[in-house]
């Protein structure tokens, strides 16, 4: 049986599958939060989710709109202060996976969430670093999820907000006390991983129905493909149902206020 699903759903389901029960995941808002909660509601019921607002081990019923919705706090094991969250829990080494979104990513998985154009005269001002710069270096590894386009996948980021492997791919070399960095990037087209040597992002799996040309046309540098290029398994009926219910529940909850 073949199911209908959108490329966004494909992305969320694939991102969710990257997580497992044993992980302690520092969750970014938006796509990472959707994926992390989908994981929790499907194959990883005991995954530990942590949001930078201080909520430790939280189990929200609907997706939070902000990083600090009340549901995150009420369903958490406990809620700590923001300095404690960043100092003891993140920098202290207790996070296995940092899960980030971004506005721009480059071939060495560096992230830009600061601005497009020149710093003192920006064309487009973006929100800024938030938790990402230290999540990316203090978590043991980093997962990244974003939509794939020439605007988002650029050869060099305009501003390096959050380090992947640096402008030369070597930013983590010989540093003590730094995580492995981005180990996977999940888009609506494919799954990319850094080359073990050069750290340049390489396509490892195409989502069902996506071609190499689709990825080439949506990437701002000459993207490489792994020798053994796989195909991502399509979402299962259960994954889609849980995801759609979660999103419907979320939309109803956020609309029904005032």
């Amino acid at each position, binding site marked *: 049986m073949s199911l209908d699903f959108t490329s966004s759903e494909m992305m969320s389901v694939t991102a969710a599958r990257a997580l497992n029960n044993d992980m302690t995941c520092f969750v970014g*808002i*938006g796509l990472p939060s959707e994926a992390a909660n989908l994981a929790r509601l499907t194959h990883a019921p005991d995954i530990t989710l942590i949001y*930078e*607002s*201080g*909520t430790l081990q939280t189990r929200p019923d609907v997706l*939070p*709109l*902000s*990083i*600090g*919705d*009340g549901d*995150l*706090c*009420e369903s958490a094991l406990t*809620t*700590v*202060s*923001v*300095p404690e*969250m*960043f*100092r003891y829990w*993140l*920098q202290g080494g207790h996070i296995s996976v940092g899960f980030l979104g971004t506005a721009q990513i480059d071939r060495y998985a*560096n992230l830009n969430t*600061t601005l497009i154009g020149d*710093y003192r005269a*920006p*064309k*487009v*001002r*973006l*929100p*800024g*670093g*938030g*938790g*990402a*710069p*230290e999540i990316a*270096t*203090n978590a043991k590894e980093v997962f990244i999820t974003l939509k794939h386009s020439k605007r988002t996948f650029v050869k060099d980021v305009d501003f*390096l*907000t959050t*380090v992947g492997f*640096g402008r030369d791919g070597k*930013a*983590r070399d010989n*540093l*003590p*006390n*730094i995580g492995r960095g981005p180990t996977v990037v999940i888009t609506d087209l494919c799954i990319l991983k850094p080359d073990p040597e050069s750290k340049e992002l390489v396509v490892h799996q195409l989502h069902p129905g996506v071609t190499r040309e689709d990825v080439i046309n949506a990437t701002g540098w000459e993207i490489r493909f792994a020798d053994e290029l796989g195909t991502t398994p399509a979402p299962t009926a259960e994954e889609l149902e849980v995801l759609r219910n979660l999103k419907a529940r979320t939309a109803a*909850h*956020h*609309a*029904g*206020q*005032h």
Partner: protein
Amino acid sequence: MAEFLSLREAVSRYINDGDTVAMEGFTHLIPFAAGHEVIRQKKRDLTLIRMTPDLVYDQMIGAGCAKKLIFSWGGNPGVGSLHRLRDALENEWPNSIEILEHSHAAMACAYDAGAAGLPFAVLRGYIGSDLPKVNDQIKFIECPFTGEQLAAVRSVRPDVAVIHAQRADRNGNVLIEGIIGIQKEVVLAAKRSIVTVEEVVDDLSAGVNACVLPSWAITAIAEAPKGASPSYALGYYERDNAFYKEWDGIARDRETFQAWMKANVFEKGAE
């Protein structure tokens, strides 16, 4: 000891033009009522500090209160841009504003150091980032024991801290519950502080290790029911996520923004 004042009196007395003002509350307990009073009193040339500027600073910046913003994430959470902030940065409307930006970790540490009376904080941060190139309040130092290079950031010590909390008792002790964010730190780091509360009660009903600010650590307390809305106060009301989404449309355009401010801020007094 904290003095109980009306919000109008507290803002009038303790926030001056040109002050460095930190209005904190990490998504939760954002002091909107106080921000609106600052706008109504037409305070000018403020250096505004806040980890997540949120709608409250979008409104204050759009209303022309700010000359500088110190922050670590300036968006409408889960929605998109803060359009008034962008208009100021991209088009200098209604005035140009200077910015100094940090990461959350660094800014949390800078508040923590401020509360601890220290001139700077140390963190393992900013590795590989361009942020230290555009922020002169970030330096790198060496651990005197291991030689490891670590980031140092200047501590945050505002003139005035403004926070919202669930409740105060009649002696002026304040309870903060739920996402406590950086609320305690900003009050302790500041020279003066204004705390708005949902209500004043006989007994805080606080747990033994609750986050309580003693009266003698606070300058002024003003009762402001629903003072955090459209943000929220755990135990009192929920975050108005629908309004956060609507704000995107209101703030995108200068005229709809000004009309909204007129109807919802200028023509409404402080409680």
